[in-house]
Protein backbone atom coordinates (compact mmCIF):
# COMPACT_ATOMS: atom_id res chain seq x y z
CA UNK A 1 0.00 0.00 0.00
CA UNK A 2 1.45 3.34 -1.01
CA UNK A 3 1.91 6.35 1.21
CA UNK A 4 -0.21 9.48 0.65
CA UNK A 5 -3.40 8.46 -1.09
CA UNK A 6 -4.87 11.32 -3.19
CA UNK A 7 -8.48 12.33 -2.60
CA UNK A 8 -9.45 11.15 -6.08
CA UNK A 9 -8.71 7.58 -4.96
CA UNK A 10 -10.95 7.54 -1.89
CA UNK A 11 -13.01 4.36 -2.15
CA UNK A 12 -16.79 4.73 -2.20
CA UNK A 13 -19.71 2.54 -3.19
CA UNK A 14 -22.04 3.40 -6.06
CA UNK A 15 -24.41 5.52 -3.97
CA UNK A 16 -21.92 8.36 -3.51
CA UNK A 17 -21.53 11.29 -5.93
CA UNK A 18 -18.48 13.49 -5.67
CA UNK A 19 -18.29 17.18 -6.64
CA UNK A 20 -15.44 19.62 -6.42
CA UNK A 21 -15.72 21.82 -3.34
CA UNK A 22 -14.34 24.94 -5.03
CA UNK A 23 -16.99 24.73 -7.72
CA UNK A 24 -19.65 24.64 -5.06
CA UNK A 25 -18.06 27.32 -2.90
CA UNK A 26 -17.65 29.75 -5.80
CA UNK A 27 -21.10 29.16 -7.24
CA UNK A 28 -23.04 32.35 -6.45
CA UNK A 29 -26.42 30.80 -7.19
CA UNK A 30 -28.62 29.96 -4.24
CA UNK A 31 -28.96 26.24 -3.70
CA UNK A 32 -31.96 25.88 -1.42
CA UNK A 33 -31.85 22.11 -1.54
CA UNK A 34 -28.58 22.24 0.37
CA UNK A 35 -29.41 25.30 2.36
CA UNK A 36 -26.34 27.09 1.13
CA UNK A 37 -28.25 29.81 -0.63
CA UNK A 38 -30.30 30.54 2.45
CA UNK A 39 -28.24 32.87 4.63
CA UNK A 40 -30.71 32.84 7.48
CA UNK A 41 -30.12 31.03 10.73
CA UNK A 42 -31.12 27.35 10.78
CA UNK A 43 -34.30 27.41 12.83
CA UNK A 44 -37.29 25.04 12.69
CA UNK A 45 -39.77 27.80 11.77
CA UNK A 46 -38.21 28.26 8.30
CA UNK A 47 -40.17 26.56 5.57
CA UNK A 48 -37.12 24.79 4.16
CA UNK A 49 -35.61 23.95 7.55
CA UNK A 50 -36.11 20.16 7.32
CA UNK A 51 -34.46 20.06 3.90
CA UNK A 52 -31.57 22.21 5.05
CA UNK A 53 -31.10 20.14 8.19
CA UNK A 54 -31.11 16.92 6.16
CA UNK A 55 -28.56 18.35 3.75
CA UNK A 56 -26.37 19.49 6.62
CA UNK A 57 -26.66 16.09 8.28
CA UNK A 58 -25.57 14.38 5.09
CA UNK A 59 -22.63 16.76 4.85
CA UNK A 60 -21.71 15.84 8.43
CA UNK A 61 -21.89 12.16 7.47
CA UNK A 62 -19.53 12.47 4.50
CA UNK A 63 -17.26 14.70 6.58
CA UNK A 64 -17.08 11.99 9.23
CA UNK A 65 -16.10 9.40 6.64
CA UNK A 66 -13.29 11.65 5.42
CA UNK A 67 -12.19 12.45 8.96
CA UNK A 68 -11.97 8.70 9.60
CA UNK A 69 -9.97 8.23 6.43
CA UNK A 70 -7.69 11.18 7.13
CA UNK A 71 -6.87 10.05 10.68
CA UNK A 72 -6.27 6.52 9.39
CA UNK A 73 -3.90 7.74 6.72
CA UNK A 74 -1.92 9.71 9.30
CA UNK A 75 -1.37 6.41 11.11
CA UNK A 76 -0.03 4.88 7.90
CA UNK A 77 1.64 7.63 5.89
CA UNK A 78 4.48 8.60 8.24
CA UNK A 79 7.43 6.71 9.66
CA UNK A 80 8.06 7.14 13.39
CA UNK A 81 10.01 10.23 14.37
CA UNK A 82 9.76 13.94 15.09
CA UNK A 83 10.88 15.33 11.73
CA UNK A 84 8.57 17.29 9.44
CA UNK A 85 7.82 14.14 7.45
CA UNK A 86 7.57 11.84 10.47
CA UNK A 87 5.06 11.24 13.24
CA UNK A 88 5.75 10.42 16.90
CA UNK A 89 4.35 7.20 18.34
CA UNK A 90 1.95 9.06 20.65
CA UNK A 91 0.60 11.14 17.76
CA UNK A 92 -0.19 7.96 15.86
CA UNK A 93 -1.96 6.62 18.94
CA UNK A 94 -4.08 9.78 19.05
CA UNK A 95 -4.92 9.40 15.37
CA UNK A 96 -5.94 5.76 15.93
CA UNK A 97 -8.18 6.90 18.76
CA UNK A 98 -9.65 9.49 16.40
CA UNK A 99 -10.31 6.71 13.88
CA UNK A 100 -12.49 4.96 16.43
CA UNK A 101 -14.29 8.19 17.29
CA UNK A 102 -14.92 9.05 13.64
CA UNK A 103 -16.10 5.50 12.93
CA UNK A 104 -18.67 5.94 15.70
CA UNK A 105 -19.64 9.31 14.25
CA UNK A 106 -20.21 7.64 10.88
CA UNK A 107 -22.46 5.10 12.58
CA UNK A 108 -24.34 7.84 14.42
CA UNK A 109 -24.66 9.93 11.25
CA UNK A 110 -26.05 7.02 9.22
CA UNK A 111 -28.65 6.35 11.89
CA UNK A 112 -29.48 10.06 12.25
CA UNK A 113 -29.85 10.28 8.47
CA UNK A 114 -32.36 7.45 8.63
CA UNK A 115 -34.10 9.20 11.50
CA UNK A 116 -34.35 12.42 9.49
CA UNK A 117 -35.50 10.65 6.32
CA UNK A 118 -32.32 10.90 4.25
CA UNK A 119 -30.72 8.20 2.13
CA UNK A 120 -26.99 7.74 1.78
CA UNK A 121 -25.91 9.52 -1.41
CA UNK A 122 -28.96 11.78 -1.58
CA UNK A 123 -26.62 14.79 -1.44
CA UNK A 124 -23.25 15.19 -3.16
CA UNK A 125 -19.93 14.76 -1.37
CA UNK A 126 -16.97 17.16 -1.54
CA UNK A 127 -13.69 15.62 -0.42
CA UNK A 128 -12.50 18.89 1.12
CA UNK A 129 -11.82 17.54 4.58
CA UNK A 130 -9.71 14.68 3.28
CA UNK A 131 -7.81 17.05 0.98
CA UNK A 132 -6.69 19.02 4.03
CA UNK A 133 -5.52 15.69 5.46
CA UNK A 134 -3.17 15.13 2.52
CA UNK A 135 -0.56 17.65 3.64
CA UNK A 136 2.88 16.02 3.74
CA UNK A 137 3.69 17.62 7.14
CA UNK A 138 1.76 15.94 9.99
CA UNK A 139 1.63 19.19 11.96
CA UNK A 140 -0.04 20.94 9.03
CA UNK A 141 -2.46 18.03 8.74
CA UNK A 142 -3.41 18.43 12.36
CA UNK A 143 -3.81 22.20 12.18
CA UNK A 144 -5.77 21.97 8.92
CA UNK A 145 -7.98 19.09 9.96
CA UNK A 146 -8.12 19.00 13.75
CA UNK A 147 -8.00 22.71 14.48
CA UNK A 148 -9.66 24.22 11.39
CA UNK A 149 -12.12 21.59 10.12
CA UNK A 150 -12.85 19.79 13.37
CA UNK A 151 -13.22 23.28 14.80
CA UNK A 152 -15.84 23.90 12.13
CA UNK A 153 -17.43 20.62 13.20
CA UNK A 154 -17.74 22.00 16.74
CA UNK A 155 -19.68 24.94 15.31
CA UNK A 156 -21.84 22.69 13.13
CA UNK A 157 -22.64 20.18 15.89
CA UNK A 158 -23.46 22.97 18.29
CA UNK A 159 -25.81 24.46 15.68
CA UNK A 160 -27.44 21.09 14.98
CA UNK A 161 -27.80 20.39 18.70
CA UNK A 162 -29.60 23.73 19.07
CA UNK A 163 -31.75 22.96 16.02
CA UNK A 164 -32.68 19.64 17.63
CA UNK A 165 -33.57 21.37 20.87
CA UNK A 166 -35.69 24.03 19.19
CA UNK A 167 -37.48 21.50 17.03
CA UNK A 168 -38.19 19.16 19.96
CA UNK A 169 -36.08 16.32 18.56
CA UNK A 170 -34.45 14.55 21.52
CA UNK A 171 -32.63 12.00 19.34
CA UNK A 172 -30.87 14.68 17.28
CA UNK A 173 -30.04 16.72 20.38
CA UNK A 174 -28.67 13.68 22.24
CA UNK A 175 -26.47 12.51 19.37
CA UNK A 176 -25.10 15.93 18.49
CA UNK A 177 -24.20 16.54 22.12
CA UNK A 178 -22.16 13.32 22.24
CA UNK A 179 -20.41 14.03 18.96
CA UNK A 180 -19.68 17.57 20.15
CA UNK A 181 -17.82 16.12 23.15
CA UNK A 182 -15.62 14.06 20.83
CA UNK A 183 -14.93 16.99 18.52
CA UNK A 184 -13.70 19.13 21.39
CA UNK A 185 -11.26 16.29 22.17
CA UNK A 186 -10.07 16.16 18.56
CA UNK A 187 -9.55 19.91 18.32
CA UNK A 188 -7.64 19.83 21.59
CA UNK A 189 -5.45 17.07 20.14
CA UNK A 190 -4.63 19.38 17.24
CA UNK A 191 -3.85 22.29 19.57
CA UNK A 192 -1.67 20.14 21.82
CA UNK A 193 0.32 18.57 18.98
CA UNK A 194 0.81 21.93 17.28
CA UNK A 195 2.42 23.26 20.46
CA UNK A 196 4.46 20.14 21.18
CA UNK A 197 5.90 19.58 17.74
CA UNK A 198 6.67 23.21 16.99
CA UNK A 199 7.92 24.26 20.43
CA UNK A 200 11.46 24.67 19.05
CA UNK A 201 10.55 25.44 15.47
CA UNK A 202 8.82 28.81 15.11
CA UNK A 203 8.95 28.68 11.31
CA UNK A 204 7.09 25.38 11.24
CA UNK A 205 4.53 26.75 13.70
CA UNK A 206 4.04 29.83 11.52
CA UNK A 207 3.51 27.65 8.44
CA UNK A 208 1.02 25.51 10.33
CA UNK A 209 -0.97 28.49 11.59
CA UNK A 210 -0.97 30.03 8.12
CA UNK A 211 -2.30 26.76 6.70
CA UNK A 212 -4.98 26.80 9.36
CA UNK A 213 -5.96 30.36 8.42
CA UNK A 214 -6.27 29.38 4.76
CA UNK A 215 -8.41 26.37 5.64
CA UNK A 216 -10.50 28.35 8.11
CA UNK A 217 -11.28 31.02 5.53
CA UNK A 218 -11.85 28.58 2.72
CA UNK A 219 -14.24 26.49 4.80
CA UNK A 220 -16.09 29.24 6.51
CA UNK A 221 -18.44 28.31 3.64
CA UNK A 222 -18.75 31.81 2.25
CA UNK A 223 -19.37 33.21 5.72
CA UNK A 224 -22.14 30.77 6.59
CA UNK A 225 -20.28 30.13 9.86
CA UNK A 226 -20.02 33.31 11.92
CA UNK A 227 -21.20 35.33 14.86
CA UNK A 228 -23.88 37.41 13.18
CA UNK A 229 -27.42 37.02 14.45
CA UNK A 230 -28.49 35.41 11.18
CA UNK A 231 -25.40 33.19 10.71
CA UNK A 232 -26.68 29.73 9.79
CA UNK A 233 -23.80 28.14 11.70
CA UNK A 234 -22.82 29.87 14.92
CA UNK A 235 -19.22 30.13 16.03
CA UNK A 236 -19.19 28.12 19.28
CA UNK A 237 -16.81 30.21 21.38
CA UNK A 238 -17.18 28.30 24.66
CA UNK A 239 -16.43 24.90 23.11
CA UNK A 240 -13.50 26.31 21.15
CA UNK A 241 -12.04 27.63 24.40
CA UNK A 242 -12.35 24.14 25.88
CA UNK A 243 -10.49 22.84 22.85
CA UNK A 244 -7.50 25.07 23.46
CA UNK A 245 -8.26 28.14 21.33
CA UNK A 246 -7.20 31.53 22.71
CA UNK A 247 -9.71 34.40 22.56
CA UNK A 248 -7.71 36.18 19.88
CA UNK A 249 -7.65 33.03 17.75
CA UNK A 250 -11.44 32.82 17.93
CA UNK A 251 -11.70 36.52 17.08
CA UNK A 252 -9.54 35.89 14.02
CA UNK A 253 -11.79 33.06 12.83
CA UNK A 254 -14.83 35.31 13.27
CA UNK A 255 -13.12 37.98 11.20
CA UNK A 256 -12.14 35.50 8.46
CA UNK A 257 -15.73 34.34 8.27
CA UNK A 258 -16.93 37.92 8.04
CA UNK A 259 -14.50 38.59 5.19
CA UNK A 260 -15.66 35.47 3.38
CA UNK A 261 -19.25 36.59 3.70
CA UNK A 262 -18.49 40.03 2.29
CA UNK A 263 -16.57 38.50 -0.60
CA UNK A 264 -19.49 36.23 -1.43
CA UNK A 265 -21.87 39.19 -1.37
CA UNK A 266 -19.57 41.04 -3.77
CA UNK A 267 -19.46 38.05 -6.14
CA UNK A 268 -23.24 37.81 -6.08
CA UNK A 269 -23.60 41.52 -6.77
CA UNK A 270 -21.24 41.18 -9.73
CA UNK A 271 -23.34 38.33 -11.15
CA UNK A 272 -26.45 40.39 -10.63
Amino acid at each position, binding site marked *: MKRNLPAAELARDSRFSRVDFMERARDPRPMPSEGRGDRAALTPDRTNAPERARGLMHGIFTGEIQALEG*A*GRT*CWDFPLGTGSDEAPFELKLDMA*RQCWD*EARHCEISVKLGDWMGTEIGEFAESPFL*YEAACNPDPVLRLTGVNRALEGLAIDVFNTMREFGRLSGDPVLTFCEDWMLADEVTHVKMGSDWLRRLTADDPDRRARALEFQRVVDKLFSLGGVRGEDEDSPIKLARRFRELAGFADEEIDEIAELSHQAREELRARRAAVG
Partner: protein
Amino acid sequence: MAAPSKPRAAFAPWDRRELPGAFTVEESAARVGHYKWIEMRLFEALGGWVATVPELDVKMRLGTHCYHHAWHAELWHKRLPELREMNPDRLAVPPNAELEAFVDAMTEPEAPELTIEKLVGVYRVLIPHKIAAYTYHLNNTSTITDAPTIRSLRFALQDELDDWRDGEMLIQSLIESADDVDRAIAHQAKLEKLMVAAGGIAGDGSIGSQPQLDEVSA
Protein backbone atom coordinates in the same frame (compact mmCIF):
# COMPACT_ATOMS: atom_id res chain seq x y z
CA MET B 1 -16.70 -13.84 61.61
CA ALA B 2 -13.30 -15.09 62.74
CA ALA B 3 -11.34 -12.91 65.13
CA PRO B 4 -9.29 -10.34 63.15
CA SER B 5 -6.15 -11.36 65.02
CA LYS B 6 -6.43 -15.03 64.10
CA PRO B 7 -3.63 -15.96 61.65
CA ARG B 8 -4.77 -16.88 58.13
CA ALA B 9 -2.88 -18.49 55.29
CA ALA B 10 -1.30 -15.97 52.89
CA PHE B 11 -3.12 -17.59 50.00
CA ALA B 12 -6.80 -18.47 50.13
CA PRO B 13 -7.63 -22.16 49.69
CA TRP B 14 -8.84 -21.59 46.14
CA ASP B 15 -5.73 -19.63 45.11
CA ARG B 16 -3.38 -22.19 43.56
CA ARG B 17 -1.08 -19.78 41.71
CA GLU B 18 2.56 -20.85 41.63
CA LEU B 19 5.76 -18.85 41.43
CA PRO B 20 7.59 -20.57 38.56
CA GLY B 21 6.93 -19.46 35.02
CA ALA B 22 8.30 -20.29 31.61
CA PHE B 23 9.83 -16.86 30.97
CA THR B 24 12.63 -14.81 32.51
CA VAL B 25 12.31 -11.04 32.69
CA GLU B 26 14.38 -10.75 29.52
CA GLU B 27 12.37 -13.37 27.65
CA SER B 28 9.09 -11.76 28.59
CA ALA B 29 10.45 -8.32 27.57
CA ALA B 30 11.61 -9.68 24.20
CA ARG B 31 8.16 -11.09 23.48
CA VAL B 32 6.47 -7.87 24.60
CA GLY B 33 8.75 -5.90 22.26
CA HIS B 34 7.72 -8.12 19.34
CA TYR B 35 4.07 -7.68 20.33
CA LYS B 36 4.45 -3.91 20.25
CA TRP B 37 6.03 -4.09 16.81
CA ILE B 38 3.30 -6.23 15.27
CA GLU B 39 0.48 -4.26 16.93
CA MET B 40 1.95 -1.08 15.47
CA ARG B 41 2.21 -2.54 12.00
CA LEU B 42 -1.38 -3.73 12.27
CA PHE B 43 -2.97 -0.50 13.45
CA GLU B 44 -1.05 1.49 10.86
CA ALA B 45 -2.22 -0.85 8.09
CA LEU B 46 -5.84 -0.82 9.23
CA GLY B 47 -5.74 2.97 9.36
CA GLY B 48 -4.26 3.15 5.88
CA TRP B 49 -6.81 0.72 4.44
CA VAL B 50 -9.82 2.64 5.72
CA ALA B 51 -9.62 5.02 2.75
CA THR B 52 -9.18 2.20 0.25
CA VAL B 53 -12.22 0.03 1.03
CA PRO B 54 -15.51 1.08 -0.56
CA GLU B 55 -17.72 -1.08 1.69
CA LEU B 56 -19.09 1.29 4.32
CA ASP B 57 -19.51 -1.34 7.03
CA VAL B 58 -15.95 -2.60 6.53
CA LYS B 59 -14.60 0.96 6.48
CA MET B 60 -16.17 1.76 9.85
CA ARG B 61 -15.12 -1.56 11.41
CA LEU B 62 -11.50 -1.11 10.34
CA GLY B 63 -11.51 2.32 11.97
CA THR B 64 -12.70 0.79 15.23
CA HIS B 65 -10.22 -2.08 15.15
CA CYS B 66 -7.38 0.32 14.27
CA TYR B 67 -7.75 1.84 17.71
CA HIS B 68 -7.88 -1.54 19.47
CA HIS B 69 -4.46 -2.47 18.14
CA ALA B 70 -3.03 0.99 18.81
CA TRP B 71 -4.13 0.59 22.40
CA HIS B 72 -2.44 -2.81 22.58
CA ALA B 73 0.75 -1.23 21.22
CA GLU B 74 0.50 1.38 23.96
CA LEU B 75 0.02 -1.32 26.62
CA TRP B 76 3.17 -3.10 25.46
CA HIS B 77 5.06 0.18 25.12
CA LYS B 78 4.31 0.96 28.77
CA ARG B 79 5.15 -2.55 29.93
CA LEU B 80 8.67 -2.56 28.47
CA PRO B 81 10.29 -0.17 31.01
CA GLU B 82 8.69 -2.23 33.78
CA LEU B 83 10.64 -5.18 32.38
CA ARG B 84 13.91 -3.26 32.71
CA GLU B 85 13.94 -2.08 29.09
CA MET B 86 14.35 1.69 29.39
CA ASN B 87 14.60 2.17 25.66
CA PRO B 88 11.36 0.59 24.41
CA ASP B 89 12.32 1.18 20.78
CA ARG B 90 15.25 -1.23 21.16
CA LEU B 91 12.95 -4.22 21.60
CA ALA B 92 10.03 -3.00 19.45
CA VAL B 93 11.37 -4.93 16.49
CA PRO B 94 10.26 -7.89 14.41
CA PRO B 95 11.61 -11.25 15.62
CA ASN B 96 13.09 -11.98 12.18
CA ALA B 97 13.14 -10.87 8.56
CA GLU B 98 10.48 -13.45 7.72
CA LEU B 99 7.86 -11.66 9.83
CA GLU B 100 8.75 -8.39 8.12
CA ALA B 101 8.19 -10.14 4.80
CA PHE B 102 4.84 -11.35 6.08
CA VAL B 103 3.78 -7.80 7.03
CA ASP B 104 4.95 -6.46 3.66
CA ALA B 105 2.83 -9.07 1.89
CA MET B 106 -0.16 -8.55 4.17
CA THR B 107 -0.18 -4.77 3.58
CA GLU B 108 0.37 -5.04 -0.17
CA PRO B 109 -3.30 -5.13 -1.31
CA GLU B 110 -4.47 -1.60 -1.98
CA ALA B 111 -7.06 -1.48 -4.79
CA PRO B 112 -10.70 -1.07 -3.77
CA GLU B 113 -11.52 -4.46 -5.31
CA LEU B 114 -9.23 -6.24 -2.86
CA THR B 115 -11.20 -6.01 0.36
CA ILE B 116 -11.34 -9.80 0.70
CA GLU B 117 -7.55 -10.03 0.52
CA LYS B 118 -7.12 -7.23 3.06
CA LEU B 119 -9.48 -8.88 5.52
CA VAL B 120 -8.14 -12.41 5.00
CA GLY B 121 -4.61 -11.32 5.78
CA VAL B 122 -5.64 -9.75 9.06
CA TYR B 123 -8.51 -11.92 10.27
CA ARG B 124 -7.63 -15.36 8.93
CA VAL B 125 -3.86 -15.24 9.33
CA LEU B 126 -2.41 -12.53 11.56
CA ILE B 127 -5.01 -12.29 14.31
CA PRO B 128 -5.29 -16.09 14.80
CA HIS B 129 -1.51 -16.16 15.20
CA LYS B 130 -1.63 -13.28 17.66
CA ILE B 131 -4.28 -15.08 19.68
CA ALA B 132 -2.12 -18.20 19.72
CA ALA B 133 1.04 -16.40 20.85
CA TYR B 134 -0.76 -14.32 23.47
CA THR B 135 -2.51 -17.42 24.81
CA TYR B 136 0.75 -19.34 25.07
CA HIS B 137 2.34 -16.45 26.96
CA LEU B 138 -0.70 -16.09 29.21
CA ASN B 139 -0.78 -19.79 30.03
CA ASN B 140 2.91 -20.17 30.77
CA THR B 141 4.28 -17.03 32.38
CA SER B 142 4.43 -16.80 36.16
CA THR B 143 0.99 -15.91 37.46
CA ILE B 144 2.55 -14.06 40.38
CA THR B 145 5.75 -12.39 39.17
CA ASP B 146 4.47 -11.48 35.69
CA ALA B 147 0.90 -10.58 36.66
CA PRO B 148 1.02 -7.16 34.94
CA THR B 149 1.81 -8.81 31.59
CA ILE B 150 -1.01 -11.28 32.17
CA ARG B 151 -3.45 -8.45 32.80
CA SER B 152 -2.48 -6.75 29.53
CA LEU B 153 -2.58 -10.07 27.66
CA ARG B 154 -6.14 -10.65 28.87
CA PHE B 155 -7.28 -7.20 27.77
CA ALA B 156 -5.62 -7.66 24.39
CA LEU B 157 -6.98 -11.18 23.94
CA GLN B 158 -10.53 -10.03 24.60
CA ASP B 159 -10.20 -7.50 21.76
CA GLU B 160 -8.47 -10.00 19.50
CA LEU B 161 -11.21 -12.58 19.93
CA ASP B 162 -13.98 -10.03 19.38
CA ASP B 163 -12.22 -8.55 16.35
CA TRP B 164 -11.47 -11.99 14.92
CA ARG B 165 -15.18 -12.79 14.98
CA ASP B 166 -16.08 -9.39 13.48
CA GLY B 167 -13.54 -9.83 10.70
CA GLU B 168 -14.53 -13.40 9.93
CA MET B 169 -18.17 -12.37 9.65
CA LEU B 170 -17.25 -9.53 7.30
CA ILE B 171 -15.27 -11.98 5.16
CA GLN B 172 -18.15 -14.44 5.04
CA SER B 173 -20.51 -11.64 4.02
CA LEU B 174 -18.20 -10.62 1.17
CA ILE B 175 -17.58 -14.12 -0.21
CA GLU B 176 -20.41 -14.74 -2.65
CA SER B 177 -19.01 -17.13 -5.26
CA ALA B 178 -16.64 -20.01 -5.81
CA ASP B 179 -14.16 -17.56 -7.30
CA ASP B 180 -14.28 -15.48 -4.13
CA VAL B 181 -13.59 -18.63 -2.10
CA ASP B 182 -10.57 -19.40 -4.29
CA ARG B 183 -9.27 -15.84 -3.90
CA ALA B 184 -9.58 -15.98 -0.13
CA ILE B 185 -7.95 -19.39 0.15
CA ALA B 186 -5.11 -18.53 -2.21
CA HIS B 187 -4.27 -15.36 -0.32
CA GLN B 188 -4.55 -17.08 3.04
CA ALA B 189 -2.23 -19.87 1.91
CA LYS B 190 0.33 -17.37 0.57
CA LEU B 191 0.40 -15.45 3.85
CA GLU B 192 0.22 -18.51 6.08
CA LYS B 193 3.38 -19.85 4.46
CA LEU B 194 5.17 -16.61 5.24
CA MET B 195 3.92 -16.71 8.82
CA VAL B 196 5.07 -20.32 9.23
CA ALA B 197 8.50 -19.30 7.96
CA ALA B 198 8.54 -16.57 10.63
CA GLY B 199 7.60 -19.04 13.37
CA GLY B 200 4.72 -16.84 14.54
CA ILE B 201 4.45 -13.25 15.71
CA ALA B 202 7.22 -13.70 18.29
CA GLY B 203 9.40 -15.88 16.07
CA ASP B 204 10.34 -19.44 16.90
CA GLY B 205 8.63 -20.56 20.07
CA SER B 206 5.68 -18.21 19.61
CA ILE B 207 3.41 -20.96 20.88
CA GLY B 208 6.12 -22.99 22.60
CA SER B 209 8.07 -25.88 21.22
CA GLN B 210 6.92 -29.45 20.95
CA PRO B 211 9.07 -31.56 23.30
CA GLN B 212 10.85 -34.52 21.72
CA LEU B 213 9.04 -37.79 22.40
CA ASP B 214 12.05 -39.30 24.16
CA GLU B 215 12.04 -36.27 26.50
CA VAL B 216 8.38 -36.87 27.24
CA SER B 217 8.87 -40.53 27.98
CA ALA B 218 11.90 -39.75 30.14
